[in-house]
């Protein structure tokens, strides 16, 4: 699991059927000291995270497929939780 900053959201009507009903966030994964870590990712979200929120994302595709309930889902990154403003160095 990794910390990430929500920098936006995306809307897609044409998509893999397993993604229907899931909100797509654009999240920038962060390193422990708050720097950008790689490219922004599309993260599926059911918690209603907004732009600017610090979230925790999981890269466990098998867990995501289990949660979605679709064994062929191409989704990997999943929003697990929204952090309160944490005391870690930003």
């Amino acid at each position, binding site marked *: 699991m990794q910390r990430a900053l929500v*920098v*936006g*959201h*995306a*809307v*897609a*009507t*044409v*998509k*893999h059927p397993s*993604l229907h009903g899931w909100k*797509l966030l*654009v999240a*920038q994964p962060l390193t422990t000291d708050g720097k*950008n870590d790689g*490219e*922004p*990712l*599309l993260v599926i979200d059911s918690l209603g995270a907004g*732009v*600017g929120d610090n979230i925790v994302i999981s890269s466990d*595709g098998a867990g995501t*497929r289990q949660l979605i309930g679709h*064994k*062929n*889902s*191409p*989704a*990997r*990154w999943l929003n697990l939780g929204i952090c309160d403003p944490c005391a870690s160095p930003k």
Partner: protein
Amino acid sequence: MRIAQVIGTVTLSRWHPTLGGFRWVIGVPFSLKALQKGKPDGEDFVILDQLGAGQGQRIGVSEGVEAAAAFLPERKPIDAYCACILDSLDVR
């Protein structure tokens, strides 16, 4: 899933027996700065596309195990799969 912009298509003359009859597009991924400016800046790669993404469209690309998972139980040697075509992308 990474975000990539479609810049072209690929036509295969020979292919792995399990990969016949698919459409292949070339996508260039975005870094955060590129996403804010709207112009992709990553390294292009070939993506298997079943949704019909057109030239210049931005797509969500699933990579690695999740790309091949889209075809389970069939086993296909692919590592990039177009999971969605983005209608709107709002990045601040």
